[in-house]
């Protein structure tokens, strides 16, 4: 006997994607036309796994190579800033060696995609780490300046103020009062 089956490609694909994403425990919304919004950012490994899971079925994760490179630059910067013994590295040399591109190229791609510079992003991350050291480790500004390779406490203070608009001591005061308010 013969059966005629009518099917809708779109439904199949959507259902299939849903299953695969649920296998990896991802929360998401489908936006149609193959666009999916994930509730959180995927780690590089999780994205690899997803790609590998989808490829055999003819699905391919389309990505913008430049955005991928920018994410790698950001990851490398974070690694550098959170290294406790980073005295020997110049950030431009570190990035160029780690990512196998000239610093000039990396710098151009970064600005093109994020509308801000690598230098600014490094400062932003350093100040972010300073905030953490201040709040979590309760370190003094002198200790933090030393750990993050600032030439002086004044230099760290100035950069903190330039980046956030407030002084380190005002920052500490605000967060402390916020926490008291929450109690």
């Amino acid at each position, binding site marked *: 006997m013969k059966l005629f089956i009518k099917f809708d490609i779109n439904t199949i694909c959507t259902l299939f994607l849903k299953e695969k994403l649920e296998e990896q425990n991802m929360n998401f919304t489908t936006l149609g036309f193959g*666009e999916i*919004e994930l509730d959180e*950012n995927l780690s590089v490994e999780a994205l690899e796994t997803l790609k590998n899971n989808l490829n055999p079925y003819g699905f391919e994760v389309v990505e913008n190579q430049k955005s991928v490179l920018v*994410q790698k630059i*950001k990851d490398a910067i*974070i690694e550098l800033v959170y290294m406790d013994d980073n005295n020997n590295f110049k950030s431009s040399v570190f990035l160029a060696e780690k990512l196998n591109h000239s610093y000039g190229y990396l710098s151009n791609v970064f600005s093109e*995609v*994020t*509308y*801000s510079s690598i230098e600014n*992003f490094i400062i*932003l*991350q350093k100040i*972010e780490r300073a*905030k*953490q050291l201040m*709040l979590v480790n309760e370190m003094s500004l002198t200790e933090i300046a030393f750990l993050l390779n600032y030439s002086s406490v004044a230099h760290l203070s100035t950069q903190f103020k330039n980046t*956030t*608009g*407030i002084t380190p001591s*005002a*920052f500490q*005061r*605000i*967060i402390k*009062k*916020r926490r008291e*308010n929450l109690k």
Partner: protein
Amino acid sequence: MQKNALHILLADDDEDDRLFFKDAFEEVRVQTKVTFVHDGLQLMEHLLTPDVKLPDILFLDLNMPKKTGKECLIEIKKTEHLKNIIIAIYSTSSSEEDIEDTFIEGANIYIKKPSDFNTLKKIINEVVTLNWHYHTSGLNRDNFLLRLK
């Protein structure tokens, strides 16, 4: 930078100021979609509408009739599903006390309302770029404080 436009909600009772912001947002590099509300009551009503798309950044004028920006800020921070919205307060006041106070109440950004268009554009660019970094680079939002003049 990103596929979907950044969703901005702006609460201000002054029509000139709303237009001023609207024009500035149109000229920044990042694609944005701006929604306006006219006072504090309307703002809270909007945010508490079921299934409403919450903004990525809320620009909040401190001085508004019916319900002030500060009252809204406190209410938002007390509401479980709203408290993670990034809030940018703007005001003509530059009293240190006012500024610290709004930060303590949970604002992330304090903007001294600029009088010229180019400064406003510069400020908006800075806010949007930094917000994006916080969004994509695992920075701690609880420590996100920024004061712009």
